[in-house]
Every structure is written in C-alpha cells, then in structure tokens.
C-alpha cells in the first residue's frame, strides 16, 4: 500500500489562487495580487518537487482517486490522478516553467489595468494544465484539455477592446473544437469497445493485443482520431492556423501557453496513448508524416515574417512538428525530450522577445529594431543562448533533443531516410530564420523611432504594414519611445534561469539516461522494440548524421550572417527576384484565405440565404402562413353566417335542422 500523495492538491492550489484573485483582486493592491498568484503557482511547483523526491518509494504508476464523477449506463469516469515517469516529467516542466513565467508576468503586466484579471487567468490555466497532465483517465484529461483551451481563449483575448485580439481568441477556441471532435469520437470508441477510459484498465486490455496490419482497424481509427485532437491543440497541419493569430495575447501568455506547455498537450496525449499507436502502424505513419510536413512547412513561413512574435509562433509550430515526427516513428521519449528542452528554450525566446518589445516601447516589427545588444545586454545574452539552443548547436539543450529525433527518424523501424532528410533541411531553415531574427534584432544600428531609420525599413519589402500602433492595447507600457532600456530584475531573473536550463537541459540525456528513465512508460509490450533495431544500425552512421545536422545548423547561421549582417541590402533583392514565391510565403501560403473562401464564407452565406431565409422563412413559415391565411378566408366567408341578423340566424337554424333530418332519414332508409 503506497502512501497517498494528495496529488489533487497540485492542480487545486493554482485554482485557489485564481479564485482569490478573480473574486477579490480588483480591490487589492498589485503587490497582494502578485503575492497570491506567485505563492499558489509556486506551491504547486514545490509540491511537484516534493512528489519527485518521493518517487523512489512509490510503485509507479501510482493512482489516486479523489471522487466519482460521471456515471451513465455502465460506464464510469472519476476524478482520479495518475502518476508515472511521464506525468511526473510533465508536471515538473509545467509547474516549473509556469512558476517562472508567473514571476516574469509581474514585471511585464504591472502597468496593465487588468493586472489582477491576468494573474487570475494565468493561475486558472495552471489548474487546467496540471489536471490534464495528472489525469487518470481520458475524460479527466479532456476536462484539462478543454480547460486549457478556455484559458487560452481568455488570455489571447485578454486585451478584448482590440478587435483582432478578440477574434484571435475566438478562432483559437473554434479550431480547437474541430480537433476535439476527433478526440471525443475516439473516447466514444474506447468506451464502446473497452468500457472504460481509465488509463490503468484500458492499457491493461490493450497490451495483449497484436498490431493491426496494413490499414484500418479499431486501434488505427482511435489513433487517427486522437491525432485529429492533437493536431488541433498542438497546431499541426491542417489545424495550425490559430496559433500565429494567438500572438495577439500578451507575451507571457505566448511563452507559457503557446510555446512551453499547452501546445505540447497533443504530444503528451499521443505519448500517453502510445500503446494504441504502437499497435496501429498506419496511424503512426500518419502522425510522422503530419509532424514532418508541419515542421518543414511552418519553418519556411518563419523565414519571411517580420513580426518577432510571428517568427517565434511559426517556429513553435515547426518544433512541435519535430515532436510529432518523433512520436510517429515510435520514439516517444525523444519527442518528450524535445518537448522538455523546447519548453526551456522556446519559453525563453518568447520571454526575451517580450523583454525586447518592452524595451522598444511595444514595437514588434523587427525592421524597426536592430543594434539592441548594447541597450539590453541581459536580454541579448539569454536570447543568444536560446537561439543557439534551438538552432541545434552543441552542447546546448536543443542539439541533444533534435539530434535524438533525427537519429530515431532515420533508424527506427517506423522511420525512413525521408523523414530524416526533411528534418535536416528543416534544421537548416530553423537555424537560418532564428539567426535572421537574432541579427535583425540585436545587430546593426537601432532603426526604431528615429527619422533617419526610415531608409533601413526597406530591408524587406512589406506587402502591407500590419503594425500601426494601437492606442488601446498592445504590448505597450506607455514608455516613451526613446533609448531602449533593460527590463526590471523580476523579468530578467526568469530569463537567466531558463537560459541556464536551455544550456544544460540536454545533458540529462547523455548516455541514454533520459530514455531509460521513461522506458517503463514507453514499453510497448511488443516483441520488436525500437531500441534493438537502433543498436543494429551501429554507431558510425549515428556520428555521421550528427555531423550533418551540426553542419546544417552552422550553415544556417552563416547564411543569416551573410544576408542580414554582411549584405543587408541583399534580402530585398532576392525577395524581389523571387516574386510570386516570396509573396506566397510572406502571406503564409494563403492558407487562411483558402479556409475562409472554402469553409467559413459558404457556411455563413448558406446559413443565411438557404437555411434561414430559404427553409425557415420561405418554405416552413410560408406554408404555415398560407395555411393560416386560407383558414382565415374560409372563416371569413363562414363569418357571414354570424351577421347578428336574427332572421338570418333563424334561417341557418332551419337549414341545419333540415340537414339533420335529411341525414336521419337517409340513415334510416339505408
């Protein structure tokens, strides 16, 4: 009998914080609000650390039941929690990074009128995310899943007076709901065939099953449907379109929700369901293809973006694609490893970008930045670490995790050299667009807020300028545009901590320790395991491939240096010579426009003209009104009988009597 850890406290603590700030925050001082928000998210982190310290005395997976929840027919789902190596790792990442971002937000949002509301939402998000991670069944996971979507909606639209922010929040919610369609149907399939959604009982039933060969079976269907849900939450093709828009939210939100934690929920869900995917090779292949394509596709869009946050958004989509690539070749621990290092360096990149935006008074267009390394050294150095990490330079965290994925994509029995090749090309592009961002932001001359800088704006042609300053709400703190300045200590501290983690975070995998830690979770229960076949391929290939991926990273750096530092006039000329191709990339391949034309507009127009005006008003109400009108005409003519004329009444009575008599006689005769 293992001791109870009271796991339910971990999500509940931030919920308490959210409730306190949500109900009373408006009347309290900012210091009190930040104290509450940080204390409760910190307490969740502390408790996660304590749980981690207890892990050796537990038999994993460790289950805890809080209370029953839904019961219908013979199916039951409870408020139950599930702790194993995977959820522990997620727990630490989510609560740890979340706690740091709470700290950062205090500085970043201090001057905002909705400070307490922001902190309350942030705590609420932590509650749902921790519920998602610790859930002991798919339904509770679904609560967290929907709940993080809600928090994301509220936080993207945090500056709700701005129409684009409100629209972006709505778009995120609805696109996620489309993904949830798949998730829900998958749950119904599981209930129908296994009669439970509890991980423990469910996986016990699935473990003895054999893989489904070539194509459609129950587990393949479930796997594909789960992937639909994951594609929504984790912004994969074709449901990725909400994430770039989500950058309308305050930057700490982009860091916490749209980079480090929530968007990785899909990866976590696929990894959690690995027993299903292991037995559904076709579903696995689909996951790998979606991940690989998304990685490449989003990276190419990232090249042409001029908004610093949009670059990072497409980069996030691309990196999530890597994680799905890993899961798709059944290298789940590589995917989860990249999830962790990505949380460090991408969280850091966003926070540092926020610090940059903060420094230049709300500007997000990189064409109006430049030379900032002199003004904001802390931000510069931490962001440098993160940039080298994501580009895959050894010995930083991103190198280890990305290299692991590329190696597995090549060597796994589910892998292929195609995945590897696209992965390496994407790595090169990643390195290029990240160093482009780095050079544009921190090197050269400062191009912001000075008349003489106008000429420099021509560095890249803009189809339209989307960044007219908005007086209402923006990442704008009312600082005068003058000399850029470094952020306060409370924002710099999280940057520094994340920089350290982005540096050393990958070392946990040296010697395969990370994989061994997660091995009990990812044991497929099948005979041919990934690890064995990887060993067969041998060490020299691995070294060679590693060299190629390092070369890709270095050449990306070199190209970015050449184009954006050495020859800053060249990119505009290249872009001009590319013509249509460049415009297409700049406009994100017109996917949003395509969705609008093909789905949204016909739906809205059809609903109005065909359904509402056509069916409802013309057909149904038309029939009803015609029926009523003709009834009225009939009664109008009948009404003349009721003339009030006594003699006419008498006449009618007589006629009626005659008719009755006639009927009786007729009936009698018959």
């Amino acid at each position, binding site marked *: 009998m293992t001791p109870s850890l009271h796991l339910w406290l971990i999500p509940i603590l931030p919920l308490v914080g959210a409730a306190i700030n949500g109900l009373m925050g408006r009347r309290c001082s900012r210091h009190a609000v930040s104290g509450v928000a940080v204390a409760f998210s910190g307490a969740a982190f502390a408790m996660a650390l304590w749980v981690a310290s207890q892990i050796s005395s537990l038999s994993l997976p460790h289950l805890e039941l809080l209370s029953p929840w839904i019961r219908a027919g013979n199916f039951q789902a409870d408020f139950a929690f599930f702790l194993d190596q995977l959820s522990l790792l997620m727990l630490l990442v989510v609560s740890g990074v979340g706690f740091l971002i709470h700290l950062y937000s205090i500085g970043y949002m201090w001057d905002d009128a909705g400070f307490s509301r922001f902190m309350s939402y942030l705590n609420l998000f932590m509650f749902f995310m921790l519920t998602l991670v610790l859930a002991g069944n798919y339904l509770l996971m679904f609560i967290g899943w*929907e709940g993080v979507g809600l928090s994301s909606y509220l936080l993207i639209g945090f500056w709700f007076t701005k129409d684009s922010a409100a629209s972006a929040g*709505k778009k995120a919610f609805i696109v996620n709901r489309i993904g949830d369609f798949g998730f829900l149907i998958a749950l119904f399939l599981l209930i129908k065939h296994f009669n439970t959604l509890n991980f423990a009982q469910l996986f016990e039933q699935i473990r003895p*099953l054999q893989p489904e060969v070539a194509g459609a079976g129950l587990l393949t269907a479930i796997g594909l449907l789960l992937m639909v849900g994951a594609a929504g939450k984790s912004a994969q093709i074709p449901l990725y379109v909400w994430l770039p828009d989500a950058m309308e939210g305050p930057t700490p939100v982009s860091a916490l929700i749209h980079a480090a934690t929530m968007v990785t929920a899909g990866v976590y869900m696929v990894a959690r369901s690995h027993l299903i995917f292991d037995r559904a090779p076709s579903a696995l292949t689909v996951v790998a293809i979606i991940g690989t394509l998304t990685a490449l596709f989003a990276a190419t869009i990232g090249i042409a973006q001029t908004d610093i946050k949009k670059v990072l958004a497409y980069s996030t989509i691309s990196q999530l694609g890597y994680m799905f690539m890993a899961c798709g070749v059944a290298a789940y621990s590589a995917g989860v490893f990249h999830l962790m290092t990505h949380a460090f360096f991408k969280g850091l990149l966003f926070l540092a970008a926020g610090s940059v935006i903060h420094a230049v008074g709300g500007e997000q267009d990189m064409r109006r930045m430049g030379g900032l390394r002199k003004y904001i050294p802390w931000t510069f150095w931490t962001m440098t670490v993160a940039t080298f990490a994501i580009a895959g330079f050894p010995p930083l965290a991103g190198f280890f995790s990305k290299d692991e994925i590329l190696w597995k994509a090549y060597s796994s029995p589910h892998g292929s050299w195609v995945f590897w090749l696209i992965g390496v090309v994407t790595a090169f592009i990643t390195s290029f667009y990240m160093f482009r961002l780095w050079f544009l932001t921190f090197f050269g001359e400062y191009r912001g807020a000075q008349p003489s800088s106008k000429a420099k704006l021509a560095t890249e042609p803009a189809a339209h300028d989307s960044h007219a300053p908005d007086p209402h709400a923006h990442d704008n703190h009312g600082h005068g545009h003058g000399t850029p300045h470094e952020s306060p200590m409370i924002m710099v501290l999280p940057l520094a901590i994340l920089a350290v983690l982005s540096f050393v975070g990958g070392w946990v995998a040296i010697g395969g320790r990370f994989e061994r830690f997660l091995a009990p979770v990812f044991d497929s229960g099948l005979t041919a395991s990934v690890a064995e076949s990887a060993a067969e391929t041998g060490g020299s290939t691995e070294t060679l491939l590693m060299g190629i991926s390092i070369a890709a990273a270095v050449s990306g750096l070199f190209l970015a240096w050449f184009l954006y530092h050495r020859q800053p006039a060249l990119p505009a000329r290249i872009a001009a010579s590319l013509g249509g191709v460049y415009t297409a990339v700049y406009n994100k391949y017109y996917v949003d426009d395509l969705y609008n034309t093909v789905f949204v507009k016909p739906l809205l127009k059809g609903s109005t003209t065909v*359904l509402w005006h056509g069916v409802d008003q013309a057909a149904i109400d038309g029939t009803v009104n015609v029926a009523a009108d003709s009834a009225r005409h009939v009664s109008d003519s009948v009404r003349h009988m009721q003339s009030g004329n006594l003699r006419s009444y008498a006449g009618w009575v007589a006629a009626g009597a005659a008719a009755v008599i006639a009927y009786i006689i007729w009936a009698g005769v018959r």
Partner: protein
Amino acid sequence: MQSHILSIILFTPLAGALLLLFIPKQNKDLIRWVANLASLLGLLVSVPLVPWFWAQRYDPGFKFIEGGSNNWIPSIGAGFHLGIDGISFLLIMLTTLLGWISILSSWTAIETRVKEYYIWFLVLQTGMLGVFMALDFFLFFVFWEAMLVPMYLLIGIWGGPRKLYAAIKFFLYTLFGSVFMLLGILFLYFNHHTLTGIYTFDLLALYQTAPKIEFHYAVWLFFAFFLGFAIKVPMFPFHTWLPDAHVEAPTAGSVILAGVLLKMGTYGFVRFSLPFFPSVVMDSRVRSWMIGLSLVGIIYGALVSLMQKDMKRLVAYSSVSHLGFCTLGIFALNPAGISGSVLQQINHGISTGALFLIVGILYERRHSREISEYGGISNVMPVYATITMIMFLSSMGLPLLNGFVGEFTILQGAFMENKMWAAWAVSGVILAAAYLLWLYQRVFFGPVTNPKNEKLHDLTGREMLTFAPLLIAAFWIGLYPKPFFQILEQPVNALVQTVRPGYPGAGAPVNAGVLPPPAAAEAAVVPTPAAKGTN
C-alpha cells in the same frame, strides 16, 4: 404531509393567484410582493420533496401517489391521479425554481397590467406542474391545454411589437398538435375498453393495453402523439413558432417557455410515446426519422443561430439545436441516451433560462436586442459580463459545467447505437462554440462604440439573486452529477426494459474483458426485470 405533497406543490401557485385577485390593481408593489412570496413559497414547499424522494429513489414505480383512477369524473373514467418518478421529479424541481426566478426577474420589467400578469404567471406555473404530475390522461390533457392560455396571454399582452402574430402562431401551432394528440388519447381510451371492458384514462391502466395495439394502428397513433410533442419540443421542421414567440415574449415568459414548456414535449415522448408504442419506436424506419430530425435540428438550429442579428432570436434557435440533443438521446433508446437527455433537459432549463435573463437585462436597460447596438459591454458591466461568460460556457458544453455532462452522456448513448449519429451531433457542439463566442465577441468585447452604452449600470442585487441559483446548479451538475444519475437510474432502466426487453442494463459487468465482440456483449445480459409498476 408526504401523502399530499404533490397537491401542495401543485396548488400553491394557484392559491397565490387567487389571493392576488383580492388586491386592488393600483397597489402594484403589494401585488409584486405577494406574487414573489407566492412563487418563493411554491419553491419552498417543493424542497421537502428532495430528501423524501431521495430516500426512495431506487423504488420501482411512481411515488407520492395521490388520488386514483376514475375518482374525478367517474362517468367517463377520469381520475385526479398524481404521482412522480425520477424524471418528473427533476422537471418539477426545475419548474418551481425557474418559476420563482422568472417572477423575481419581472419586478421592474413589467409596468402595465401588473396584477393580471402575475395572476396568469402563477396559473401557468400550476398548469406546468400538473403536466409533470398527472397520471391520468384526461387530467394531463386539461393541464396541457390549460397552460396554453396563460402563455398565449403573456406573449399577446406583455410582448413586443409583433406580439399578436407571435402569440397566435404559438397558440395555433400548439393547438394543432394537441388536436392530434387528443385523437390519439381517445383511441387509447376506447381501445382499453375494447380489451378490458373498462373506460378509463388512467395512465397505469393504459400502459398495460396500449403496447398491445397492432403495429399498423400503433404507427398512426405514434405519429398523432408525435405531432403534439414535436411541435412543443420543437423538433425541425415544426420549430418556426419558437423564434417568434421568444422574440416577442417578455423576459420571464421566455425563461419559462424555454426552461419548462419545451420540456413538456420531450417529457411526452419519454412518458407516453416510448412505453405506449415500443414496437413503433424500435422500428428502424421510424427511429431513423426521429434521429434524422433530431440531427437536422441540432445542426440546422446551430447554423441559423449563427447568423441571427437579434440576440433573443439567436438564443431561440440555439434552443432548437439543444433540444435536438435531447430528442437524439431519447431515441437512442438506451440508458445513457435517455438519462443524458433528461439531464440535458434540466441543463437547458438552467443555461438557456439564464441566457434569456441575460438578454432581458440588456433589453431592460437599452430596449434593444440588436447585436449591432452593442459592443464593449465588458468595460461597463464587468460582473454581468463574467456571469454571461460562465453561462455561455455552460451552454456550449464546457467540462466542469452542467452542459458537458448532459451532452457527453447523450453522445455516448447515441454512439453505442450508431457511430454516425454521434459524429453528426458532435458537429453541433463545434457550432455551439461558434455562435456563442461570436455573439459574446460582438456584444461584450471591443471598445464601447455606441454612446448609449457608456452609462449602463452593472447588475443589481435582485438581478444577481436571479442568477445565483442557476450558477450554483450549473457548477453542481458539472462537478458532481452523480445524484442526478442515481435519481434517473430506476425510471430510465425501467423504460429501456419496457422498450427493449433484455437490453444489457446497468448491471452489466464493467470490465467484461478484452474487446468483447458485439454478440458476446449482448449475451452478457443481466436482465433486471423492472417493468412499469402497476397500481
């Protein structure tokens, strides 16, 4: 006390209405106080029912029986016969709660002909309660028709600009349906006489003889009742009275109309159509039609809702969509579907009732329901905006709130029968998010552009009081729906056993093993002989 509790609940509002008759109509505030106290009393007298019912929730048959067959008008076999099971219990509690809330919400909204208003409202309350309690078809029909008149007057007198059109449309539509239902009732009545030699309208007696009717008659009878109930629900394509009625009705009228009146249709299906005509509802063609109309209603209602420019009309069409889920659950004909459906009926009363209150609050301040008149309301009415957000989330089925529990259970029940049913219905869930969030964005987000909206005051204490019980209920059902499912377990299982004898009931093993083939699952039946209790 226990033996007369139903009469007490039933007649308390009527007694209040009678009391109001003696108050001079100039004395508006006194009338308001008396009406509110009467409706509060109507709620309070229903509270003891909760522990009493809870104690016998698993007992078979109807409970708290009063009167008996043929004791009212013995010559035709009509009886004053009351009794409830878990299904009607929940609907009665919803009715007493919403009755109190809607009367409370009318305090400042109704300024003309105050006395008549409250009298008719209280009469309506008794009529609705009677429908859910009656165990005699004659009595049922009396209540069913009786509550039509007050509703007609509420819309026709205190309604908006097109109130007469809406009121007459409502009246004629419903009357049209009830005529067919009446024919159906008479057929059952004479059929009972043919089989047993006894003339009676008693429900428990008819339960015995109605299922024996031959299929080709039963089909016609089913559709006669169907017309009565489908118009009330309303199911597509009989729904066009609803938007007009809602738009013109006063706020409280809309709350009751959506919250309770529509449930009479779904209640009718559960209480009458299913146990009377099990062979018809199990007929695959009939069932496909019922499910098809439900699915069309879900998606059609949501799509049309999406494009509305009038807030109240939008909520009205969303009701068509939500009620589609309820009928889908009923005709899934399994325990999950039906209990989810009843729970969703309660949920719809809570969340859509709240949505109409929400629209009413803006209407009272601005006298406009046009969405384009608003924008940025979050800036001026933050508390109101927060409550609205919670109720919208409840309506779109977000987990931890009530709507999710009902929808999930219905969908699960539907999925058990046919995967495509659930798949189509889930698309309604997506659209619900679209129309509600878009509405929210247009009304609450953005800057305040209309100067008339700048000085709106936030919720008053009385208004908050109307929302408080609905919020509590929404979270309660969302977090801990177990007691509701327990209350529904006995009547729903009995119903399923009646319609599909031998259906694997709640007793089936939870963990039957690895991938049981469907046939094996059917075989592993633990039959729970729970036929309808006879009197």
